[in-house]
């Protein structure tokens, strides 16, 4: 079974395991009673010691010849679409929602770009605010106990 080296496309989810990423593969399942399709999630743990994929990235994972641990059955092959940094596969340009980044930039230049405005060239890569202002790299929970310590992931 395991020798197939099956490739799967899924989305990276927040995960506390070290050296591994939790990948969600979402498929549609037919409910024969209602004759309707419903979402069905399968979770895989992919070996990822360098933590190349971050929460929300769409990644390709490959099945390992034999499972590494009890949980880890796959390895991360490639990050296909990093979250919030989409490249149009046809033209190869960066996209934000329905527009090319360079079109937005051109409009800004025509209107007279503000000094304080956001600049892609100066912006550092994703992940610098993890744990200080951006808590999307972990799972949040509803606060259930007051222990006097700081609970960053409690909502």
């Amino acid at each position, binding site marked *: 079974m395991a020798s197939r080296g099956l490739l799967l496309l899924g989305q990276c989810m927040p995960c506390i395991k070290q050296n591994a990423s939790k990948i969600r593969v979402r498929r549609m399942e037919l409910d024969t009673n209602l004759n309707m399709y419903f979402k069905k999630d399968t979770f895989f743990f992919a070996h990822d010691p360098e933590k190349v994929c971050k929460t929300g990235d769409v990644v390709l994972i490959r099945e390992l010849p034999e499972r590494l641990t009890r949980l880890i059955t796959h390895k991360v092959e490639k990050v296909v679409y990093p979250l*919030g940094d989409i490249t149009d596969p046809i033209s190869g340009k960066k996209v934000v929602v329905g527009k090319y980044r360079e079109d937005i930039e051109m409009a800004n230049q025509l209107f007279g770009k503000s000094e304080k405005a956001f600049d892609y060239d100066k912006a550092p890569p994703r992940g610098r605010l993890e744990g200080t*202002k951006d808590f999307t790299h972990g799972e949040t929970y509803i606060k259930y106990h*007051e222990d006097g310590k700081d609970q960053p992931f409690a909502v």
Partner: protein
Amino acid sequence: MNKLLNIAHAVPRQFVRDYAFKSDLKIKWVRPEKISCIKPEKSGDLGKLPPLNPNELLPDYKDSKELANANETVKSMFLLRNNPNNLTTRYYRDLMIKEVQRHAQDYGSMEAKLARMTALIRRFQSHMEVHPRDKMIKVRLKEMIDKRKKFLKYLRRWDYRRFEWILEKLDLVYKPPPTKFHWITRKESLQKLTDIYCEKIKDERLEAYHKELQEQQIPFLEDAIKKMIFIRQEQIDCDVPVTVTEEQIEEARQQLAQLQELREAAAAATRKQSDETFH
């Protein structure tokens, strides 16, 4: 738990659990205090609006030459603090939008919208502190906080680096919503705390056992080397086939040396750390 085990040991028949089962572990549960959703610690606002300069004029009359030459009474009529509150709100709103907008005419981009909402939210929050029973503002405030959170969610999906930049610029904290909503109950919280307690005990015991085994490593190797040398000598003396080679003994010696080195390094590190904490 221990009480139950004692009973179970004393009575060798099948143990039946009572109705209200209570654990006798010393776990104290403190219910977290409810924080109102309009409070800054819940809405994610770390920063506050800058204090208002008492001599700030109305923005429309800022560059007026007549006002600059007018007398004090006239001037005071054009001070921001002597005018309706909503003008101050507008002043703050424009101030905040100017910080993030893409160009001078930009009021509709996601950054500008977020800045506008943040200014209003902070203004409303300070209003709610003074007038806690103002329900109209409370509703508007809550709706706006939720909307801002939604917009932040979108921006994160569209353009991650811009999202981080805006978090830093507006001094906001973004926490994704929990996957499942549930009410906080004593039973469930105690279950979770008990799980954590058990995990901790498990880890501690495993760690202790690991240490114990590690301590046995060096004496074991020393003993093994001695025995191997002895067996080899005996086999040579008695003219029976030699099963223990020189390489095996050398390998064991190397292992021992490595281990001793490691232990000494670890001991030195802990000694240094304890010295630092002591001073």
